[in-house]
C-alpha cells in the first residue's frame, strides 16, 4: 500500500519495529548502518548460537522487508549522500540520543530547511526534552518508570520484568503510527514535522485501570502473581492454573462474557463427571466478580482446578473452541508454530536466506488486507547488501562508490 513512499531507517534495536511496520505495509525502507554494520547486530541470541552479525535474531526479526546500506553519516561526504537520499524520502527514522543529529547538522531544523515535507521520527528512552532526557536506559529501567513492572510479579516478592525487551516495541509501533499521522497531514498540506516518541511514555500509555483506580478509589493496583489484581476484596482470584504438563490461564469473571464461558465450562466438566452440584446450581448470569467471597470462590476453584489438572494444553484448547469457553493455555513456542488457527490463517511464512541455502520461519503479516499482499518479500539485509543498487539509483558511479568505500564512508 505504501510502495510510493521511502523511509530512511537509522535506528538501532530501540527503533527497529517502526521501519518494519512501514516496510511490511509496502514502503521502500532503507536501513542505514555505519560502515561495518549496526552494533545491534551483536545482540543475541544468534541463529546457530554462534555470534555472527548476519545472524542476530533481533536483527532478523525486525528488519525483514528493509533494504540495507552502509554509510558514515558523521563524515562530510557521508553527510552529503545522506542529505541526497533524504531528499528522496518521506520519512527519516532514528533512535540516537537527543541532540545527536542536530550536532551533525542533520537534525529536524536542518532537514526541514532543505525539504519542508520531511517527517523526522525520533525514538528515545524518555523523549527529546524534559528532566530525564539524558538519563541512561535499559529496558528494565524504562519499564519500571512506565508502571508495567510494578504490577508484575508475586504479591510477596519484588516486581518481575518481562525478560524480552518491550519498551522499544511499544515505542517502535507508536513511531509507525506517528509517522503515518504525520504523513496524512503532509499529503494534505505538504508540511512535514518532527515525531517525538519516548519509550517510557509509550509503555506507560497502557496501564489498564491502574490510573483511574488510584484517582477514584485511592487504591494502588499491586502485583498479584498467579492471581488477579483489582477484583474482589473478599477473596483472591486465581488466574494461572496448572494443567497436565503445563499451565492454563483462566479467570472466573462476571458479565455476559463470563456467564457464557462459565456455563459452558460447567457443562463440559459435567460431561466428564467433574461438575459439582454447587457448580451446576450456580447462577452465572448474576455472578459478580467484584463482590464474590472466599467460600464461593473455593467451591469454584476446587473442581475447576481438578478439571484442568486432568487435561493437557492441547486438549483444553481443542475442547474450548467448539464450546465457546474462553481460556488461555500457555503456548510454548512449539505450540505457536503448530497452532491450528495460525496455520489456517497462513500466519507463518518460510523466508529464503539464499546466502545460507536455508529458510527460516517468520510471521507473514500483522494485517490481512483485501487490497494488498503484506507478506515478507525478502529477509533482513546483510551488511551493506544494497549499497550497489541504492547508490546507483542515487546516480553515484561505480568508481565513486569504490573510492567512498576506500575512504571508509560506505
Amino acid at each position, binding site marked *: 500500500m505504501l510502495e510510493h513512499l521511502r523511509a530512511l531507517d537509522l535506528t538501532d534495536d530501540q527503533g527497529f519495529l517502526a521501519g518494519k511496520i512501514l516496510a511490511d505495509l509496502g514502503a521502500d525502507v532503507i536501513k542505514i548502518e555505519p560502515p561495518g554494520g549496526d552494533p545491534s547486530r551483536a545482540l543475541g541470541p544468534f541463529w546457530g548460537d554462534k555470534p555472527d552479525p548476519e545472524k542476530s535474531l533481533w536483527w532478523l526479526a525486525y528488519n525483514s522487508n528493509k533494504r540495507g546500506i552502509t554509510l558514515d553519516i558523521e563524515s562530510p561526504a557521508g553527510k552529503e549522500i545522506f542529505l541526497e537520499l533524504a531528499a528522496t524520502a518521506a520519512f527519516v527514522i532514528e533512535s540516537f540520543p537527543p541532540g545527536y543529529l542536530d550536532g551533525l547538522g542533520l537534525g529536524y531544523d536542518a532537514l526541514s530547511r532543505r525539504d519542508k515535507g520531511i517527517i523526522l521520527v525520533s525514538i528515545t528512552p524518555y523523549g527529546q526534552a524534559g528532566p530525564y532526557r539524558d538519563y541512561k536506559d535499559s529496558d528494565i529501567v524504562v519499564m519500571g518508570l512506565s508502571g508495567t513492572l510494578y504490577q508484575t510479579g508475586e504479591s510477596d516478592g*519484588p516486581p518481575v520484568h518481562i525478560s524480552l525487551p518491550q519498551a522499544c516495541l511499544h515505542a517502535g509501533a507508536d513511531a509507525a503510527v506517528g509517522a503515518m499521522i504525520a504523513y496524512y497531514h503532509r499529503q494534505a498540506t505538504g508540511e512535514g514535522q518532527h515525531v517525538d516518541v519516548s519509550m517510557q511514555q509509550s509503555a506507560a500509555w497502557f496501564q489498564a485501570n491502574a*490510573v483511574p483506580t488510584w484517582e*477514584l478509589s485511592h487504591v494502588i493496583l499491586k502485583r498479584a502473581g498467579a492471581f488477579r489484581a483489582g477484583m474482589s476484596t473478599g477473596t483472591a482470584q486465581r488466574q*494461572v492454573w496448572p494443567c497436565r504438563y503445563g*499451565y492454563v490461564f483462566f479467570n472466573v469473571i462476571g458479565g455476559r462474557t463470563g456467564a457464557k464461558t462459565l456455563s459452558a465450562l460447567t457443562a463440559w466438566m459435567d460431561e466428564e463427571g467433574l461438575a459439582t452440584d454447587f457448580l451446576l446450581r450456580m447462577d452465572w448470569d448474576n455472578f459478580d466478580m467484584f463482590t464474590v467471597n472466599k467460600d464461593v470462590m473455593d467451591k469454584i476453584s476446587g473442581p475447576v482446578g481438578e478439571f484442568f489438572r486432568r487435561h493437557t494444553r492441547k486438549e483444553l484448547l481443542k475442547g474450548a473452541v467448539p464450546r465457546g469457553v474462553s481460556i488461555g493455555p500457555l503456548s510454548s513456542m512449539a505450540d505457536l*508454530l503448530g497452532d491450528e488457527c*495460525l496455520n489456517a490463517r497462513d500466519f507463518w511464512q518460510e523466508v529464503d536466506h539464499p546466502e545460507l541455502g536455508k529458510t527460516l520461519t517468520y510471521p507473514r503479516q500483522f494485517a*490481512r488486507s483485501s487490497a494488498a499482499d503484506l507478506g515478507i518479500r525478502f529477509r533482513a539485509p546483510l551488511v551493506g547488501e544494497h549499497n550497489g543498487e541504492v547508490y546507483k539509483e542515487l546516480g553515484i558511479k561505480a568508481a565513486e562508490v569504490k573510492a567512498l568505500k576506500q575512504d571508509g564512508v560506505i
Partner: protein
Amino acid sequence: MSVAKDIARREGVFKGLTILAFCWAVVGPLTMKFFADHGATVIRVETTKRPCTMRTSAPYKDNKPGLNRGGYFNYFNANILSLSLNMQKPEGVEIAKRLVKTCDVVMENYTPGVVEKWGLGYEDLKKLRPDVIMLRQSGYGSSGPYANLPAFGMVLVPIAGLPNFIGWPGKEPLPVGVSAYTDCISPRFATASLIAALDYRRRTGKGQLLDFSQFETAIYFILPGVLDYVANGREPERIGNASPDACPHGVYPCRGDDRWCTIAAATDEEWQTLCGEMGRPELAGDARFKTLADRKKNEDALNEIIARWTKERTPEAVMRQLQAAGVAAGIVANAADNLADPQLATRNLYWEMDHPETGPFTHLGQSFKLSRTPARPYSPSPLLGEHTEYVCTELLGMSDEEFVELMQAGVFE
C-alpha cells in the same frame, strides 16, 4: 457548548474524517483514540441493552456504580462520540446503514459473526458504500478455527506465549500485571495500517477490508523468542530479573512500603562507577565481580550487596544519584508515581477534563508527540448516548418528528 459547536471547533489532521465504530472493551477505543484525538469524528455505537463491559467495571466515582461513572471506561474514551442504538430493532440497523453511507471507515472488534448478523459484513457494507474501508480487530481474526471463540486480553496474553518470559526459574509463569496487555498492541498496528488504507483509497479510489487478530499482533512482541525456537529449537526459560548481557540487572528494595528501584549496569565501567556511588570502591577490584562473567557467576551475592545499599534509600534518591553518575537506574513507578512523574508531565500523557457526571477526571492522552499537529483533548468521555440526537439530526438530517418517533419506539435504547 452544543455538540455541533464542539465538533466545529475541533482541529487536527483527521478533521473531516468520519468513522463508525462498533467498539467493545479496550482495543476498539484505543484504536479510535488515535483518530479522535487528532480531530476525526468517531461515532461509537453503544446500547443501554448491553453496555460495554468497561462501563460496568470498577472503579466508580464515589464507589457508586453507574453506566457513566466507570473510571475504566472514562479513562479511555475522550473525544469519542456516543450514539445509543438498539441493533435488535430493524430501525436501529437501518440507521446504522444510513450512517455507513456517510462514513469513511467502519471499525469493529466484536466476536466475528455479530456484524454479519446485522447485515453489516464487509460485502454488505460495500453495497452501501463501494469504497468503504472496514477494520476488524477480534481476538483471533475473522477467519480460522478460533474465529468465533470469545476472547479477551487476559486469555490472549498466554495463548500468544508472553508469560513464558515472566517469572522465576523453576516457578510458575506469571501474567503481565497490566491486565489485558495485548489490548494495547493491536491498536498500533491497526492504526498505521488504516492510515495506509486511507492513503491507498485517496490514490486509487478503492476501499478494502483490513483484518487483525490480537493473537497474531501480540506475537510480534516476542518475535526474537519465537525465532530462537525456530532457529535453535530453544524454548524460553524464566530468568526473573536477570539479563544475559548485564549484571547487576535487577529490581532492588528501597526505603518505604513496597518501594523498589531498578539498576542495570551494561559495562565493567558502569559497575565500577556503581561501586563508588555505593561507597564501596573496594568492590570494583573484588575478583568475584571483575568481569560480566564473574558477576553473573556471583550474581546472588552481588544483588545482596546492592540491596543492602538501596534499602536505606528512597527509589527517587537512588535514581537521581546513579543517573547523575551515568548508571541506568529508575524508580519502579506505581500509578500514583506515574501521575506525579516530572518527565511524563512534559509529555502531556494525561488530560484532565471535567466529566459531566464525575467532575474533574484524568483521561488518557496520547502516547507520542507530534511537533506540528498535536493530539488534543476536546471532550471528556461520552455519557452513553450523549451524541445520539446530534448524529441523527445533524449528521443524518433526520427531522425532529422522526427522531422523537424512533426514540419512543425504543430505537435509541
